[in-house]
């Protein structure tokens, strides 16, 4: 499998994600946002960071960058796309994923380990996890509060598009363990077609014992 990691001005998890992908034998190239051609890839990763300093709305300016036209074409052809944190914000701004990510309800930047429940393990991104398994992965964001209207939430539920939900260590999805105010404790969703995945937690920061956890590895191992 071949992956491309898109680097925007202000991306800061691009190299970490490359290290994680390569650890799981995925050949990875770094692609600059102003490039016009995407190398032949099975997977495109939009990494975490603060693209364009989070100006206007997080991810909005990155979503209009030149390479994104290629990324959209890649996804329309069925190619895999994964957006982590700021990458997830870019995906909602490009409309490759529905809904929006707004300011955390407590107005604070939250940087801590949280637990998420894998509520859909039949995706190209979670197939190596068990359904309802609990993963401990760090989050680090200021705008991770997933918002969508009722109809859209119903649609996401009906199509099994909610993949990760914030939960407590026992797996209960409660308001107390919702770090940022996301509707339905949403931490990660997939598009209807199943090839575009966005998540706020950083699996690359939990992909090696040295980093303090390996639960994120399951996401990288699932990629196919």
């Amino acid at each position: 499998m071949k992956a491309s990691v898109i680097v925007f001005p202000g991306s800061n998890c691009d190299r970490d994600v490359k290290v994680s992908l390569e650890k799981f034998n995925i050949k990875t190239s770094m692609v600059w946002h102003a490039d016009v051609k995407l190398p032949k890839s099975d997977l495109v990763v939009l990494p975490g960071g603060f693209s364009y300093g989070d100006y206007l709305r997080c991810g909005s300016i990155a979503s209009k960058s030149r390479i994104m036209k290629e990324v959209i074409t890649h996804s329309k052809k069925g190619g895999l796309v994964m957006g982590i944190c700021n990458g997830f914000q870019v995906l909602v701004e490009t409309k490759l994923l529905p809904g929006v990510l707004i300011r955390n309800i407590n107005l604070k930047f939250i940087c801590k380990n949280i637990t998420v429940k894998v509520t859909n393990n039949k995706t190209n991104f979670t197939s190596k996890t068990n359904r309802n398994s609990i993963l401990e992965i760090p989050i680090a964001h200021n705008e991770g509060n997933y918002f969508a209207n009722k109809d859209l939430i119903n649609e996401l539920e009906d199509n099994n598009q909610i993949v990760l939900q914030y939960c407590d260590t026992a797996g209960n999805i409660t308001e107390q363990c919702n770090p940022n105010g996301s509707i339905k404790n949403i931490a990660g969703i997939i598009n209807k077609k199943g090839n575009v995945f966005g998540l706020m937690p950083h699996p690359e920061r939990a992909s090696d014992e040295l980093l303090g956890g390996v639960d994120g590895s399951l996401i990288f191992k699932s990629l196919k």
Partner: protein
Amino acid sequence: MKLQIIVTLKKDVLDPQGSAIKNSLSTMGFKNIESLRQGKIFEIIVKEKDEKVALSKAKDMCEKLLANLTIEDYSVKAIKE
């Protein structure tokens, strides 16, 4: 021609910054504030003499970049100087 664009959150979208500012004002003694919503203002000068054309361009800018229509509304007006 100078244009002013105001982008605000839609009524049913939670505005935690607006609530924090409202609470702060109340603490400072500004009582009886019923509601406070925060938004953004863009002032844009365009090389265009026809107001109708300028406004239609501004609307296009809002829909394509300046506002996220899932959560935000916008209004556009020309400013006479």
